């Protein structure tokens, strides 16, 4: 038995309704090791960490902790054993101050009373230890910057001195300065013998920090090896896989798209404080304009501004040469624009309503006979959409919450297809859906452009952008750092784009 072994996963699988998020994956993390897990969005990185943290149980397989098999019922079980996790999304209490956030759930106490002096003293000590002296223990978390919030998230996880800690995209919200602080913290932890799992899209961080690298693709284990065995190209190759490469080539080959010279959408000097600035671009008829960039680069915000959901502060939007005042999605809809938002559940779906309602809602006026809504028409249109897009549902009356992610996404897609938009904006349309549904969505987009529809595609998956886009605009920190045309999208395009998107372009 390897004495240094901290965590070991053996043949772990996790199935969600309709999605196999993880299939037969094994993973080992030793003391003092930084183990990087890489993969595209939806490859299973978050799932594997959540299983090791007890957020949900695995469907199959075993977890060993220091040589003994364990089954976590809740994250608290994992924490009590010495496992910590820094979440990607903010899990802090915004209206509490820093010290209370750090000690929530494990306050030092005498009986029922919290020892407040100790909370303060320990917080100060911890912040000093992590070189975060600039953050005051009494500051309300809501008043902190995004970066400081993320650092407090890290401090919180470290306050329990875990033996094993997982970082899920910890630098997504950090600037270079704070990233450097984090790197130091991690090196320090490593020296103390803490086992670390590190997930990041920024490959340079991986090469700087990691001892070993594991790559996942579509929920399956691809390869594990010492970091020295990898370079940028190899990592991307493993992450993307040949399969998609082939698909890409076949789609590219028969690409005789309908892209024409006619400009359907023009955006001039669009600005929104705190989100993006000085965004200008043109969208041609039948074109797919991709938007690349890291999470938080301002891509979703641009789409929402064009759609009038969160209007821009300044700038001009022209649809087919006509200047539009995009104050509300209704204006955009009438101008022939559709938006399929990110965060399907939060902004797209009506979870409790039927598939029929979800499909028809944006075009419900067309279901009328006279002033009344004709149920037959509703059902007809919904069933037609269900057939066309191969949406798997027992009937159109089923509440959409019961469908898998991919089918839900296709339902939202059909909602906008029914509106016959001239411009369709898709924000991470394949996020968290299975490979089959992905391919279907790709071909839908492809077909749309052939019919003369223009598409704006925001995606964090570069292969997807490369596959579908005629041009790719690259965003970094709210600014457009470049637009790459199709002719320039050669084999090393991924790297070029990655450089732009990480601010090195």
């Amino acid at each position: 038995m390897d004495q240094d072994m901290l965590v070991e996963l053996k043949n772990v699988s996790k199935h969600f309704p309709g999605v196999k998020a993880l299939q037969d994956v094994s993973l080992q993390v030793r003391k003092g090791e930084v183990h990087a897990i890489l993969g595209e969005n939806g490859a299973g990185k978050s799932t594997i960490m959540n299983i090791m943290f007890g957020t949900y149980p695995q469907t199959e397989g075993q977890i060993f902790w220091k040589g003994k098999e364990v089954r976590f019922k809740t994250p608290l079980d994992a924490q009590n054993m010495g496992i910590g996790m820094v979440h990607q999304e903010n899990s802090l209490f915004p209206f509490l101050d820093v010290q209370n956030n750090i000690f929530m759930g494990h306050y030092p106490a005498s009986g029922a009373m919290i020892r407040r002096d100790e909370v303060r003293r320990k917080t100060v000590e911890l912040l000093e230890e992590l070189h975060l002296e600039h953050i005051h223990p009494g500051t309300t978390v809501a008043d902190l910057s995004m970066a400081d919030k993320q650092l407090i998230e890290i401090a919180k996880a470290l306050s329990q001195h875990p033996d094993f800690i997982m970082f899920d995209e910890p630098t997504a919200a950090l600037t270079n300065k704070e990233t450097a602080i984090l790197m130091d913290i991690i090196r320090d932890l490593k020296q103390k013998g803490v086992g670390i799992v590190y997930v990041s899209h920024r490959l340079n961080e991986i090469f700087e920090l990691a001892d070993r690298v594991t790559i996942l693709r579509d929920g399956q284990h691809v390869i594990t090896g010492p970091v020295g065995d990898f370079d940028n190209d190899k990592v991307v190759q493993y992450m993307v896989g040949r399969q998609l490469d082939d698909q890409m080539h076949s789609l590219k080959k028969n690409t005789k798209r309908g892209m024409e010279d006619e400009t359907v959408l023009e955006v001039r000097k669009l600005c929104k404080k705190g989100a993006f600035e000085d965004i200008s671009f043109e969208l041609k008829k039948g074109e797919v304009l991709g938007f690349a960039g890291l999470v938080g680069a301002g891509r979703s915000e641009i789409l929402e501004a064009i759609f009038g959901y969160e209007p821009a502060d300044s700038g001009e939007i022209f649809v087919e040469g006509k200047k539009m005042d995009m104050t509300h999605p209704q204006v955009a809809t009438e101008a022939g624009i559709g938006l399929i938002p990110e965060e399907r559940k939060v902004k797209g779906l009506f979870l409790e309503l039927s598939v029929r309602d979800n499909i028809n809602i944006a075009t419900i006026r067309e279901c009328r006979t006279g002033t009344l809504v004709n149920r037959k028409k509703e059902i007809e249109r919904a069933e037609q959409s269900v057939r066309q897009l191969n949406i798997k549902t027992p009937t159109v009356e089923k509440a959409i919450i019961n469908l898998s992610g991919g089918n839900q996404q296709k339902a939202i897609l059909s909602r906008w297809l029914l509106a016959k938009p001239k411009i369709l904006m898709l924000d991470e349309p394949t996020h968290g859906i299975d490979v089959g549904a992905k391919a279907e969505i790709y071909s839908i987009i492809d077909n749309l452009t052939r019919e003369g529809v223009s598409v704006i595609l925001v995606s964090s998956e570069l292969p997807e952008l490369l596959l579908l886009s005629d041009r790719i605009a690259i965003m970094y920190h709210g600014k457009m750092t470049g637009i790459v045309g199709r002719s320039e999208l050669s084999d090393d395009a991924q790297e070029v784009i990655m450089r732009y998107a990480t601010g090195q372009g």
Partner: protein
Amino acid sequence: MDAGVKETKRMSPLKRAASVNEFGILIALIVLCVVLGLANPVFFTFGNAMNVLRQITLVAIMAVGEAFIIITGGIDLSVGSTMTLSGIMMAFFVASGVDPTVALVLTLGVGLLCGLCNSLLIVKLNLNAFITTLATMNIIKGFAYLVTGGLPIKFDSYINFIGNGTIGGADGVPVSVIIMFAVIIIGHILLNRTVFGKKVFAVGGNERSAKLSGIRTERVKYTVYSIAGALCALAGAICVCNLSIADNSSGSGMEMDVIAAVVIGGASLSGGKGSIVGVLIGAAIMGVLKNGFVLLQFSTYWQMITLGAVIIIAVVLDGLRNRKQ
């Protein structure tokens, strides 16, 4: 062609009935009626039936408006106060020499204005609906006292028939009950068969998705609160016409019965779910219970306890139903 979808099947009538959301509470209502009828045959007389319906008229009319609000995910606690103020304004207008029909129209306007104010506060100031209408409940009640000075206003005019008139002789069907059914039917059609109704469900189902589907969510809110206000005014007018007197206590406490009727009727306070037929059944269950306690000469204290229990049972059963789906 198996795309994984079955055509919506024609179900047997019984199965279809059972799949309707209101089926459970309808059964409950029928069982309740049968039990009461067996215990006291008077219950099944036409006169008693009309009595029950007349008693639920005000709650049911207001609950239709409240249902629209609750389905959008909002709530209105000021319905009782709006009813009171409207009734008083009706009497006040007529006492000031306004023609009763015109007074009725003005009164509906007063109620609509109360509702519109609620929604403007909620939308424009981005306030919580519960707190806003808790405040306006008091404000509206205060205005009602300002108008009357706390003294009842006598009300006697040709329009009193909408409250105390009957059709088909003195023992016939009360006009107010006919008005109630009209409101229910129109409300049902509005909610289920119009574009506006779809928007109401969409706003309550997911406000952000609704906005991103091109729906002017704020306009939907103005409309539902205004409708609810106008219906409270209609209830207030019927009440005054029935009693021939307008006083400051007529609508007090009504908001709880109204919300209870909507919730028993299967609406979810988190929005996106509810029905007008359910509202009628919910109001009827409460009305039948009250009536039954009188007929069986049970203590009114037990009546309160039973009503409370019914609300809880209704919500629990609804939760179970949803889980099964």
